[in-house]
């Protein structure tokens, strides 16, 4: 069974002129780390809301572990198995104190008191926020708040975690903190869908899906994506800096292949230097 399966999904917001997502079909396997990337208004957030059942498709079908999101009797189960962390950490916390906010999700699904305590322990640990347990969320930094927001979702024990541009309001350090947490969750078998417009967050994903005006423009490995100039140009994306440098070098007759990270580029340059 697929973790997520979309079949010819189309969605249009009420009053909008054009469709936000058009005839999209894709599947995501359990345990996969998928990046969804695309320019502004390409339909990324709409896709996330469709998967979690916050909105139902106009036509087509969205399934989460086989449960149809258009079936309102399954919605509760779907939301339990699929959590979303949104862009602005300030707008997804309901309680002032970290611990109380993390408890909100488990309380909603009717978890017993002692078990809520254990889940808070687990979620705070997994997101590296134990130290803030009884602090005011408003006193934390952006990266810390966003990790608390992740904890709030983890406490529900979802099998799928969607991050909708959850690092876009953070500084580089905050971004790194959050992505480290997400990667370690994926290692523990969590299915992760990262929505982003940073190409470097795509680098160590299993798969990249590129959206453009509500359509899937590309669906393949990051390596394939970075080699496809056409897709990158069409989707209005920007290559990671090391890749750009490598391409410039190639233009000038120095072939170092297609490194995606700084380390990779360094290594290739190093071997090249040693050869000569």
């Amino acid at each position, binding site marked *: 069974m697929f973790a997520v399966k979309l079949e010819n999904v189309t969605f249009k917001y009420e009053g909008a002129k054009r469709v936000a997502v058009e005839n999209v079909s894709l599947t995501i396997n359990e345990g996969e780390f998928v990046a969804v990337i695309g320019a502004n208004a390409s339909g990324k957030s709409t896709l996330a809301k469709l998967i979690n059942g916050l909105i139902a498709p106009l036509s087509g079908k969205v399934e989460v572990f086989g449960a149809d999101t258009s079936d309102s009797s399954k919605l*509760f189960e779907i939301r339990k198995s699929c*959590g979303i962390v*949104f862009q602005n950490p300030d707008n997804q916390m309901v309680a002032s104190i970290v611990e*109380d906010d993390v408890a909100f*999700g488990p309380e909603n699904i009717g978890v017993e008191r002692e078990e*809520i305590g254990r889940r808070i322990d687990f979620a705070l640990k997994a997101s590296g926020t134990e130290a803030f347990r009884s602090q005011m*969320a408003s006193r934390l930094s952006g990266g810390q708040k966003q990790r608390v927001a992740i904890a709030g979702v983890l406490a*529900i024990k979802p099998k799928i975690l969607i991050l909708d541009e959850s690092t876009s309001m953070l500084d580089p350090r905050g971004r790194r903190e959050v992505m480290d947490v997400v990667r370690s969750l994926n290692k523990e078998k969590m299915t992760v869908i990262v929505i982003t417009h940073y190409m470097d967050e795509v680098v160590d994903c299993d798969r990249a899906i590129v959206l453009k005006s509500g359509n899937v423009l590309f669906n393949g490995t990051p390596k394939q994506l970075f080699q496809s100039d056409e897709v990158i140009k069409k989707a209005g994306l920007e290559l990671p800096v090391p890749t750009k440098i490598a391409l410039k070098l190639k233009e000038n007759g120095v072939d170092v292949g297609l490194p995606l990270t700084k380390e990779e580029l360094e290594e290739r340059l190093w071997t090249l230097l040693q050869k000569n």
Partner: protein
Amino acid sequence: MLKDVAFGQYYPVESFVHKMDPRAKILYLIAYIVLIFIVKNFYGFAVCLALLALTVVFARVPIVKVLKSIRAILFIIIVTFLINLFLHREEQDVVYFSWWIFTVTRGSVTFATFMALRLITLVLGSSILTLTTTPVALTDGLESLLSPLKLVKFPVHELALIMSIALRFIPTLMEETERIISAQKARGADFESGNIFSRVKALIPILIPLIISAFRRADELGDAMEARCYTGSRVRTKYKKLKFSVNDVIALFFVAAAFAGVILLNVYAGAVI
């Protein structure tokens, strides 16, 4: 500057008062407010102040944090003090000063001082509640105290959640207000000069962006709550169980003692008000 408003700013330490049940704290606060309105002389007031001081000590909250709460209503206190001072009249009074409709008498000095003291101690007492009780505990306490109203279909749970969210967003919106003010100032907006009308008008460029952003936040918060499985109170459980403890009983003893003291002093020490 706006962030310093003490209301709703929980002060996280472990103390006797922090450990008390929020329902007990709310009820004792109500009792204390009743007390400062029935007290009739300064001796009785000393008893109220002693109770207040004792609570501050046992709450382990820095006294400046408590005193800061007065700032928010300082203006109101001064205005009511002056009105009472100049306009309050009593029969057979010693007149200290008189001009046009303004008179200051012995009675008006006492009365004005008394009313100002009442307001100040009222605010100080309330601020101890918010300083020592997390917003969730506070709203849980209210929800529990108001739960009989569920019988008449009053949406107690929803009301409590609304309060908790409102408290949660106070610092966020304060920060945002400050940001908007600096942004408008950078564009040459002037909030400090002109008469009262032009000053009120100058607030519009602050309020409009603030309201728009509040709506956007509310929209996103709604999505986030739904994504976190919020459906109302149907299957909801509660993480924090409210439980009265020995602390509440000890505190009750002090509250009752203060009550007895004030009533006795009202009867035997005469009334100045």
